[in-house]
């Protein structure tokens, strides 16, 4: 756990921020849009999948992900339901409660975008590393059902901007979602997960 930054005013830029304050500072006012690039490493695959498109935050519990490349897909989450529209096929509806792991994940994501630290803390154990200029927020699922699928989430950012969402599945598969300035960087066809993680943590320049 990060220590509260008590009486460390001069060094505050170097000390790890308070998780609650950090989450609150991330609040987006809906509707908020951002482009993304997602790299998914999986044990089932011999090379990572790279997707890009736009993310939308439309208010608590309402998210949308528009995939533009390498295929067209829109996933909308609202009222406890995910609606998946792929190409010109009829939309598929999935009730989130049917898949508690997904529901917890998306609820956490929504709380993060809404800057709702108490809601986030209900579903995850929060911890912060780094400094205000370059921080890593670690989320560890509290719910066993979610933990069976997702072992940890790491959000990396600078100041009040999140740049990376790293999701580690229980089977060690890793998804890295790059947003803000990282969304548009050029990536090699087979990026390495180590390099992307270093990028997220601000250890290397894009």
């Amino acid at each position, binding site marked *: 756990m990060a220590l509260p930054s008590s009486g460390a005013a001069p060094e505050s830029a170097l000390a790890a921020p308070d998780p609650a304050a950090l989450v609150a500072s991330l609040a987006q006012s809906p509707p908020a849009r951002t482009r993304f690039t997602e790299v998914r490493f999986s044990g089932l695959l*011999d090379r990572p*999948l790279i997707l890009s498109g736009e993310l939308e935050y439309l208010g608590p519990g309402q998210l949308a992900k528009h995939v533009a490349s390498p295929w067209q897909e829109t996933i909308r989450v609202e009222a406890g339901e995910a609606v998946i529209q792929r190409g010109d096929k009829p939309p598929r509806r999935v009730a989130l409660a*049917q898949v508690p792991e997904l529901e917890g994940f998306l609820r956490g994501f929504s709380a993060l975008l809404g800057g709702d630290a108490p809601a986030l803390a209900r579903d995850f154990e929060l911890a912060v590393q780094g400094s205000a200029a370059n921080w890593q927020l670690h989320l560890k699922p509290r719910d066993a059902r979610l933990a069976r699928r997702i072992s940890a989430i790491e959000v990396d950012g600078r100041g009040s901007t999140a740049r990376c969402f790293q999701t580690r599945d229980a089977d060690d598969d890793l998804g890295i979602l790059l947003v803000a300035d990282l969304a548009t960087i050029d990536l090699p066809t087979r990026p390495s997960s180590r390099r992307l993680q270093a990028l997220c943590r601000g250890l290397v320049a894009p």
Partner: protein
Amino acid sequence: MPRPAERLRAPLLLAVWLTVLAVLALFALRQLEVSTDLRSFMPAPQTPEQQLLMDQIGEGPGSRLLLVAISGAPQASLADLSRGLAARLADDAHFVQVINGAFDPAQLDPALLPYRYLLSTTLDTHRLDASYLHAQLLQRVEELASPAGVLLKPLLARDPTLETLAIAERWAPPKAPMTRDGVWFSARGEALLLAQTRAAGFDPEAQTAAIGALEAAFHALPGAGEARLTLSGPGYFTARVSATTRSQAQRLGMASTLGFAVLLLLAYRSLPALLVAALPVASGALAGVGALALVWGSAHGITLAFGFTLLGVAQEYPIRLLSHRRAGEAAVASARALWPLLATAIASAAIAYLAFLASGVVGLQQLAVFTIAGLLVAGLATRYLLPHVLPARFHDVAELAWLGRAVARLDRLPRPRWLPWLLLALGLAVLWRAPTPLWQDDLAALTPVPRALLQEDARLRGELGAPDVRYLLVLRAPDANGVLALSQILEPAGAALVKAGALDAIEWPSRYLPSIALQRERQAKLPDRATLAVALADAERGLPFRDGLFAPFLDDVAAARELPPLTPAEFMKSPLGTRLASMLVPADGGWIGLATLSGVHDAAALGALTDASQGRARVLDLKAASESLVVAYRERILRALGGALVLLALTVVVALRSPRRAWHVLAPMLLATLLVLVVERAAGLSLSLFHLVALTLAAGLGLHYALFFERPVADAAEARRTLHATLVCVVSALLVFGLQALSTLPVLRAIGLTVALGVSFHFCLSILMARPRGGER
């Protein structure tokens, strides 16, 4: 002054009597199994439909479904409650299956997994070739990148074409409600479940137990406090109606017993007399139950209810004895004096009921044995036991002044001989012109379900797409696999009917398991390992899947090629097969399959399925079939009653040794019975089995009135005692059955009204027609 030994005799006898009754009660309770299954009440089936109904009554899958709605809490908690309830009931022996829309892949038996290629319809339209596999794998890549990917990952290597999900979808109910929070919800926001009970839908006790288990499971759930549980379905109605009937009958029974006791206290002014007077009927009832236990070991609840009703006649015996006691005479002497006439009444009734034994219906034979045993024992107890335990002190009712005036007034009543004939003519005219159907054969109409509940049921049934409880499609084949093959053949014709709007959906047995031939056909389409490996390698080109990832898939397909097809017997043993098991039943040498129908709009159009199957499939209208059974039962009862009447007339003629005197006894009884029918028909009532039984009871009472009024009496005092006894009998019967006539339940009202009317008519007509005229005395 009696000697001490004699003084002790009465209490000793009473103690012995009570002990015997207690032992008899214990024996009856232990030995007699009271069935609530309608089957043991009905006559033997004649038509194939009736046969099916008897096999299936209450066992059709549709009638065993309880519709469950949970409301009154936020959606998420309702969904949790729905899941919790389904989980708890999954292990409950009362239920075959509980479904709430949630799909749990863990439900699939791993041993059955390779069978997915034989169960899924995929191979009917596709082959596992390179192009199909490529299209499938492309979709999997996209899904893997989506948030849902975490869920598919565990399935992927083994089942890249997702046959498991295809099967789960096929097994979901044909017209499932919408899913919210992973479980079914109604448009009103209630969580919905379907629970199939093991017990027949029309078995009130078993249904009550299942419902109790369901409610207990629900209330034990965390968070159930605020939520409301609503149940519906045939089983729920059965349990509800039976509980209402029982509670109303009990309440009325208590009120009338109290009234009856007060009446007897007023009439005889002795509490001990009142108490011991109850013993003959109690002995009769226990003897009847004991006889049933000895002969059959079980009886239907309705048979018992009918029997107890008919045994009401026996309450007259002790009343006659109490009223006919003479001042200065021992009770034993009074009983001896009364006995010839009482014995005539008892014997003629008992002989009349012999006709029921020849009816060929077990229910009616049981009724006869119960009633005959009951009447004989009650009569003998009144003659040989009751006089010895009656208190010595009593009031001779002949001393009552008002009674003397009443007899005098009755003697002065004008009794025109043409009046009965006029009543007969008028009555026949009314019967002829009565507007409503003569018979009410829908037994359910006698114990109706409240309208609000029916509306709720229709709404939930619509939302859940739950099967119709009236219509059932019955498939016949020599074996279970034949039923599945027939079901497959008919599926297209059924789909056409659904499309044409004749009904909403059909749940075919073949939806759960294809016939062995179709499984073999699919099996033959599976490529061999080498071919599949080549096709898969081709399909994977350009896709990012790891080398060798799909080895389990290759293994499963190879295994599926070699599997012996899944037989119905084997499948029904697995947890997933319970649904099929409830749809396939062995019946007289062959097998029948029950396809449930939902939302039948045009029953006549369903005949197309019979045509398409060359008669091997037929629609069973459970309502029509059960009514035809009731008609058969009623016809047997009428025939038995006809026989009983002939026997009764003969017995009375022989006993009175005079056809003319017998006519005086029987004519008022017949006319009064007719007049009850006239009044009820004029009021627009249709007659049911219950009316017939009530008419029989009333006629039995009427026989007593006429017999006692017709009896030549030695003196005016005896005439007063006869009138007193008859008045007590009439008023008590009016009290008991008049109260029942006030019931809100048609079945109790039918019995109450009929007997109350009957008692009044029998009394009036006996006075008018049976009492000897002044000149004749």
